[in-house]
């Protein structure tokens, strides 16, 4: 089925992409971005992969439906809003841009991301924020409203992860194990309970200092701006900061 493109006076291109293969959909997106369209609405997205992958343009893409894997992979600049859930590999090796998911995301969220921001209203799957790294002014940021599964922040080398645990019941701990295994940079803020046994052995814990609170407050306010809620109620809770125990966890592994 062919997609229909309509544009209004606000330069928004609207596409019905039901049944459109991923490759054609993405070619269309790139073509529109090249033509200078600044806002694109995609309707009836049913699992098409690679939406926004490798896209380098200041364009906003609003997705109604469920985008497939590798949403915004290698992306450099666009803003993607998902009115639904996202799947695996969302924000893979992302360089810059923003992804806002009004639902849950699958596994390997923000793998190796170097920049940009990702906000998830609900939960994230396994291996979120693995090997994220920061460089100069780039500091990738991942905010997860619910909780994440095992290996979150594994091998983390930079950036910020904020786990809000909003879906957890009073007294219920976050579910992930092996949190931050091999972590050697960056910081994870956890709202709610996380037990020492859930953390990787390269991870240290600390209370939040003034600077941490500034970062967390700003991110919570952005989260509330995207998804609604009461930022004071979210902030009025126990937070723990997770950080690497050593900047070089494997420095003493070798003879010479």
């Amino acid at each position, binding site marked *: 089925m062919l997609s229909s493109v309509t544009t209004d006076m606000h330069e928004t291109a609207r596409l019905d992409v039901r049944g459109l293969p991923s490759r054609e959909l993405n070619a269309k997106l790139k073509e529109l971005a090249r033509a200078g369209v600044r806002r694109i609405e995609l309707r009836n997205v049913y699992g098409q992969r690679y939406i926004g992958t490798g896209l380098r343009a200041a364009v906003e893409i609003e997705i109604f439906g469920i985008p497939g894997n590798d949403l915004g992979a290698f992306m450099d600049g666009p803003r993607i809003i998902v009115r639904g859930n996202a799947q695996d590999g969302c924000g893979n090796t992302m360089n810059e841009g923003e992804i806002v998911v009004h639902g849950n995301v699958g596994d390997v969220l923000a*793998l190796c991301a170097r920049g940009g921001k990702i906000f998830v209203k609900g939960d994230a799957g396994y291996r979120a924020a693995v*090997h994220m790294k920061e460089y100069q002014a780039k500091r990738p940021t991942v905010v997860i409203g619910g909780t994440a599964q095992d290996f979150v922040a594994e091998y983390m080398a930079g950036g910020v992860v904020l786990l809000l645990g909003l879906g957890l019941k009073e007294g219920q701990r976050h579910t992930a194990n092996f949190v931050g295994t091999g972590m050697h940079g960056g910081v994870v803020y956890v709202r709610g309970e996380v037990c020492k046994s859930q953390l990787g052995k390269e991870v240290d814990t600390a209370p939040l200092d003034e600077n941490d609170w500034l970062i967390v407050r700003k991110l919570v306010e952005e989260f509330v701006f995207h998804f609604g809620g009461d930022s004071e109620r979210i902030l009025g809770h126990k937070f723990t900061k997770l950080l690497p125990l050593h900047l070089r966890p494997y420095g003493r592994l070798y003879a*010479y």
Partner: protein
Amino acid sequence: MKTYLPAKFVVERDESRCIRCQVCVNQCTFGVHSYDVEDDEIRSREENCVGCHRCAIFCPTRALTIKKSSLDYRDNYNWSPEVIEDVIKQSETGGVLLTGMGNDKRYRIYWDHLVLNASQVTNPSIDPLREPMELTTYLGAKPERVEFDSSGLRTEVGPQVKLEIPIMFAALSFGAVSLNVQESLARAATEMGTLWNTGEGGLHPKLYQYGANTIVQVASGRFGVHPKYLEAARIIEIKIGQGAKPGIGGHLPGEKVTGEVSETRMIPRGTDALSPAPHHDIYSIEDLAQLVYALKEATGYSKPVAVKIAAVHNCAAIASGIVRAGADIVVLDGFRGSTGAAPKVIRDNVGIPTELALAAVDERLRREGIRNRASLVVSGGIRNSADVAKAIALGADAVYIGTAALVALGCTVCQQCHTGKCAWGICTTDPWLARRVNPDIGSKRLSNLLRSWSLELKDMLGGMGINAIESLRGNRLHLRGVALTDAELQVLRVKMAGS
């Protein structure tokens, strides 16, 4: 702790020739030579010598000779000096033994048990001095069939990369080697119509101008990977494994992450660059397909995507999966393949020979009818043009050379790459040492090497009575085995010499 390690080399200085110029003192990076002002004498700490010969080559009066130490343990086939000394090193440090370069053990080198054919009387040989000889190779997926109509080719053919010679420079990352080495490789590749490979260290801004001759790597650490990097390249290579260290990741220690390395890898200066053992988004062939197509999507299907694996036991089945995952090129790196640093136990004991892996993969892909869907590139232990010819006859489309290219730049295979002290200025990021490789001279030496090998390849082809490398590709009838067992001949699909 007092070390029980003996000196490996003896430094002999001919006092009648030595003019106390101290070139050796300045050239040695391992702290062997020193000058005693009071006695006006050059002294040597032989225990530090690694046998790289930098001092001997640069001594203006040829006063230095480096010899192997004659200190022998009592003969013992089982407990060789290397085995004893490894235990000593471990008991003194408690760490994993690191080493550089490729597997140096006495495993059979199959190249040396394969011989090429030549024409005699019937089907006469061709004189490459008089006849045009074709080495041009195209990398990329080939269609099953081609169809034409009145307006020309109707079949859609994926991106193809033209190589003037089927020899490319293997992945050598900036960080493992210096920028001058990479510039030498990039310039030689551009001049000779072939490609060089960034390795996993990103692409330095200075080298973007060589993009049309550049293969960029996407490995598990994704260092320096961003859209402009992908767009700059001619080929994108997903690195799954490396022949020198199959199954394990890599650690570039913080000391090597200098300002420029930090810029290229896009990580803060002085931090360890950890490449995890697996890609954390690849747990299956389907996941691999996802990354292959993510890269194709990111670059508009304009360039081939290669997948590099180490040659391991089951590589034929894995290669089949890689082709089915949409890779346009499969790269097989055998266990002789080199490294800037790897655990010695892995380098010397894991993986299989390039020759056997190549034969097995080519055979498997042919049998499954998918050989056309990907080009096959091999690396790991290609030492000369004969190895290249034999690899192509065994089914390779092209080869990568790493160690041979470094030897062209001065490397003497002393296996100290992991120390970062390379006296030849190759495997180091120390700016003072890196100046020892001059890209004007380095690129010339590399171009010369490629020119020699292509002349020799043409000679070998002419001798076989064929005038295009395409006619040798996968043509195992041009090979015979010498002193190989039936099982070996079976895997290689090569007949015994005389039969």
